[in-house]
């Protein structure tokens, strides 16, 4: 039993050592793959009958996927000891990049800078209100994602960046409310976010200090 745990620790250490050799910037080119794929589809004329809708939905979905990925990093370390914390900033920024493109697609291609309608949508349509809220919550996190801000904010940085929990829930709820009926895919994302947040609570209550 003890030997098995030892072997496992050694294995995890080896994985972490190897991960340490990977520069954290590799996340950025990886993060661009979904966008490159979408552009390639666009050039092949494969964005479907309503390309605006395809782009808008794809960008939003990518944003949510990378947010979920970022939230999974800490629970993964608790569960397996594998640490991807070095990559977390880049993962978060890629998420923000896609959320920004999602918003830009909506503003530019969908409602086409009709500011009156945009404003009305933000105020009156719950799924847009919530989606916009998520976007606004992510903005200070992206702006303070540099080392200088971390030093400057000190302990407050960590607190500020817990806003991502709220933003992820809001993003998943936004996805769920877009649907006219309960869409399974959106329920899956909301469940994932809920599980990842619940793990934090159980870790805090029952976990090691």
């Amino acid at each position, binding site marked *: 039993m003890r030997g098995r745990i030892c072997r496992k620790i050694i294995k995890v250490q080896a994985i972490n050592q190897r991960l340490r050799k990977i520069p954290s910037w590799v996340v950025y080119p990886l993060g661009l793959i979904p966008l490159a794929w979408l552009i390639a589809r*666009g050039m092949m*004329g494969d*964005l*479907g*009958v*309503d*390309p*605006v*809708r395809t*782009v808008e939905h794809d960008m939003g979905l990518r944003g949510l996927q990378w947010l979920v990925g970022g939230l999974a990093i800490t629970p993964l370390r608790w569960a397996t000891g594998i640490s991807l914390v070095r990559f977390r900033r880049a993962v978060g920024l890629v998420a923000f990049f896609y959320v920004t493109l999602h918003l830009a697609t909506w503003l530019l*291609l*969908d*409602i*086409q800078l*009709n500011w009156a*309608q945009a404003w*009305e*949508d933000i105020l*009156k*349509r*719950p*799924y847009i209100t919530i989606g916009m809220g998520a976007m606004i919550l992510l903005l200070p996190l992206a702006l303070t994602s540099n080392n200088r801000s971390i030093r400057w904010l000190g302990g407050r940085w960590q607190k500020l960046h817990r806003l991502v929990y709220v933003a992820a829930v809001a993003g998943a709820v936004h996805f769920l409310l877009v*649907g*006219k*009926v*309960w*869409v*399974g895919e959106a329920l899956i994302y909301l469940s994932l976010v809920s599980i990842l947040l619940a793990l934090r609570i159980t870790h805090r209550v029952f976990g090691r200090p």
Partner: protein
Amino acid sequence: MFRNDLKWSDVTPKAQFLNRRQIMAAGAASLVAPRAFAAGYSTDEKPNMLEEITNYNNFYEFGLGKTDPAQNAGQLTIDPWAVQIDGLVDRPGSYDLADVMKMGPIEERIYRLRCVEAWSMVIPWNGFQLSHLLQKVGVQSSARYVSFETLQRPEEMPGQRQALLDWPYREGLRIDEAMHPLTLMATGLYGDPMPKQNGAPIRLVVPWKYGFKSIKSIVRISVTSNQPETTWKQTNFREYGFYANVNPQVSHPRWSQATERRIGGGLFNSRQDTVMFNGYGDQVASLYAGQDLSKDY
């Protein structure tokens, strides 16, 4: 490498080449009268391509995605097909599709279609007026509404295996709306039989109402005295009313209805203003005289 730079938009729309054939077959006096008649109801806007009309469908019986119906509707059996016509009619019964199709002259009607999701298309339907069917079966004087039901066959309609909506899909019209000459029982598009993803073999088309009123793959038509339950209203009455007339002034909780995106213009297509009654106000506005359409949404 051979590169084909022809796009779907370069293909002559079927309606157009059919028109040419009709012109070539000129002299057929019989053609002139119904075409002139139909022209009053058809728009001269450019119809969407068949490719677009058949790959962008809301038909939850086959899935929630816009391309799900195109992928999943192939397995639907549409022959044999019968339509149960009952309620306040003189000649109720189960009518074979072939007999239903004979209830009125089939015409081409090029209609705008406005979806509640704020997109629109132009579709060259083929079909006959619902009024002809109702006259054939004899509507009784106490009739006030007509209700419709879509086929329920979960073995062939995968969406129905989930409780997405309360199946079968139901829709309804007031009798004067049902009798209006614009209201069509559509049996085809672009001169061919109705594609399955568009509601084969027979569906309703009510061009001045949001698309969800135009119920697909109809198996039952009932004439009633009370307003029938309709699926979307039942699902979410705050968002979907019984009337569901296209109305840019009444904003939907989910979409502003002031503007729409016409499908087919590509990534940089500009939005256009939505017109009251989807542009059919001259023909239908009088049906709603005295009604507050912000309440009867």
